[in-house]
């Protein structure tokens, strides 16, 4: 299903040859992955992280810096930056998951602001507030040339669908169900012999690594990395995307990212008061629907969906 979806999108983009559509799909694959990874924590593990942009920013900077040395190939830089993000996630996660609720959220926020401060002040390495300048080189590898927008588009789509599929497999696996139990009833999980801390840490690391993937894609998309990639506002955007799309449905965060990007596009095209309009729309969704759009749809079509699901089952 994911494969055919991937093929349809790629085929559509290539036949329509509409740069705007391709741009939207690219951005959706970046922010969709980002929101999906955050929902692993928020939705499945019950850990509301306010510092998720830390991994997004880390991925973008690590990849950009490695490529700018001119010494490594794209796959190597990719692997190293993702591995780096995993190490970062293990060390930050090990400290954060000991805390619960708001304390967990604030500590993740603190670590993110720490990374942001390092990016801003280590000017000789990161370029400070100007970001990584001069573009990110894209030497061809294994016959793939990411300097070609079409090839980059195809790779980003494959990447996106691949990772979504992976996450889907994971949340439907025993690991995913254990995570839900850890979220809903940690005592029971403990009584059944599950190490609650280990499950939480695993979720934190997986989620951080996927966010770093999104960061790498972003750095290739804008050909640079900027401090706002690791700023709290981006963490906030992630939470908004999840709230918009819904956290109980697997594809909710991706739908939320799509709605968020479309709204942002329409609003900036039509008005100067983007903040005001965006705020009102978000208020309407939050106060009016009281849940994400996909949650709402699924709940409304509840009996039908349940019947369908049970038939399929």
């Amino acid at each position, binding site marked *: 299903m994911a494969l055919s979806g991937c093929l349809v999108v790629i085929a559509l983009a290539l036949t329509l040859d509409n740069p705007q559509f391709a741009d939207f799909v690219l951005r959706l694959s970046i922010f969709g992955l980002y929101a999906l990874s955050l929902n692993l924590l928020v939705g499945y593990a019950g850990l509301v992280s306010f510092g998720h942009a830390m991994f997004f920013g880390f991925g973008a900077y690590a990849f950009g810096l490695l490529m700018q040395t001119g010494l490594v190939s794209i796959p190597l830089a990719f692997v190293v930056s993702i591995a780096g993000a995993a190490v970062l996630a293990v060390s930050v996660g090990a400290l954060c998951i000991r805390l619960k609720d708001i304390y967990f959220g604030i500590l993740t926020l603190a670590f993110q602001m720490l990374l942001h401060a390092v990016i801003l002040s280590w*000017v000789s390495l990161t370029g*400070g*507030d100007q970001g990584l300048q001069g573009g990110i080189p894209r030497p061809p590898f294994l016959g793939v040339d990411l300097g070609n927008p079409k090839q980059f588009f195809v790779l980003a789509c494959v990447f996106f669908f691949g990772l979504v599929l992976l996450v889907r497999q994971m949340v439907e696996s025993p690991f995913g169900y254990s995570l839900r139990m850890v979220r809903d009833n940690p005592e029971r999980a403990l009584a059944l012999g599950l190490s609650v801390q280990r499950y939480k840490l695993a979720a934190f690391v997986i989620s951080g690594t996927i966010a770093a993937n999104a960061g790498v894609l972003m750095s290739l998309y*804008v050909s640079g990395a900027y401090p706002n990639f690791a700023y709290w506002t981006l963490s906030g955007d992630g939470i908004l995307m999840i709230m918009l799309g819904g956290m109980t449905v697997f594809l909710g965060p991706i739908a939320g990212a799509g709605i968020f990007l479309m709204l942002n596009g329409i609003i900036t095209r039509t008005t100067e008061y983007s*903040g005001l309009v965006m705020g009102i729309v978000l208020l309407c969704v939050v106060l009016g629907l009281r849940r994400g759009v996909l949650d709402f749809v699924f709940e409304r079509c509840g009996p039908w969906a349940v019947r369908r699901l049970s038939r399929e089952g």
Partner: protein
Amino acid sequence: MKKTSKLGRSRRDFLKSAAATAAFAAVGGLARTARGQSNEPIKIGQPTILSGRVARLGESSRDGAQMAIDAFNAAGGLNGRKLQLVTRDSKGRPDEAARVVRELINTDKCQIILDSEASSAAFAVQEVIRQTGTLCMHACSETTSLTANPKIRAANAFRCARQDIHDSIAGGRYAAQFVKQQGFKRWMICSPDYAYGRDVSALFFHFLKESEPSVEVVSETWPKLFAPDYTENITKILQTKPQALYSALYGGDLVTFIDQGNLYGLFDQLTLFDPNMADYTTLEAVKKLPKGIHSGDRYLSTFPNTKANADWAAEYQKKFNVPPINWSWQNYVGMTFIIEAMKKTGSVDSKALSDAIRGMTIDSPFGVDGKITMRAEDQTIINYAIGWGVIIPNAPYLEDIKPADWNVILELEKDWKKKKGYI
């Protein structure tokens, strides 16, 4: 099987809507072709900041560009084709700026980009237009490396804005004269803690010490950008008791700093040098302007003190009901370069326009001797008015202005570029 049917449904819907979109686009395209190209407006895309604390940047940039466009359109445009400015808010975020520029080029069919982004977003715009090859005029970013660094420069991108290095040389030289007269050797720095503040302060003292090696920076304090409270920094300055203070604070931050400094009588005890004071928005926002601050001109209708400049400022004020500021003239001149190139080539082709703009000299009220040149070698403007003087509490606000010597600026800039490995 069921799963396939579910997918089939959504895919059909998706294809249907995609087909509808394509059909709509095709009809639109046909209609456009039928109307013919001759009277279609030439669209200029302008990514900028219209929200948040620096919304003034976007507003004044849009007004400045619009003024040049209106004059050109009133005179008949390019063979009957009018110019149309499409301004979009990027909120100052680099990734959003990149998206907005792509959208302006791909969807709105803008043929030229007038980039009115500050700081890092300008670098993101540079990467987009490097790929698309669209003509781009950066009209707000003052960061030297955008055009000085050959790795960042692009053949189709120009800068029509002040440059940090030019302002710092002028400031350093002016301060050196002051040190010679007054014998002030003990200096202190109070600049915003980010790349711009650090770079400009370092450059200022580099050029000051080059002329006056005896100058000593006895202490430094680095307030955060957009800090609401400067008590800590002011206390440190009062304790250090420097003879002169250099600050690269600007806009709202500078206003807050001066208002709070006044409470402590800070400016009675030392002489402040700030390159960013003499801009109308800043001057008018300060509650009580202390006497004797030394500042560079950002934009003043009295410098250059010519009729052309005063007339331009009066026309701007009449049209938009606000005084022009630095970003206004920069965008106005940026747009003027584009318009002059269109007149010269009769075309809107990026390559043709770029070739025409490179090395072009235009008449401008903001240039030394009424002329500004787009230097060919690094595609940035030179010979614009730079001067330092002393702030007074009422209009014309800056008196005793000493114009900077562009021969000195160009010579020192060249040495500095060699040191940085840019040449």
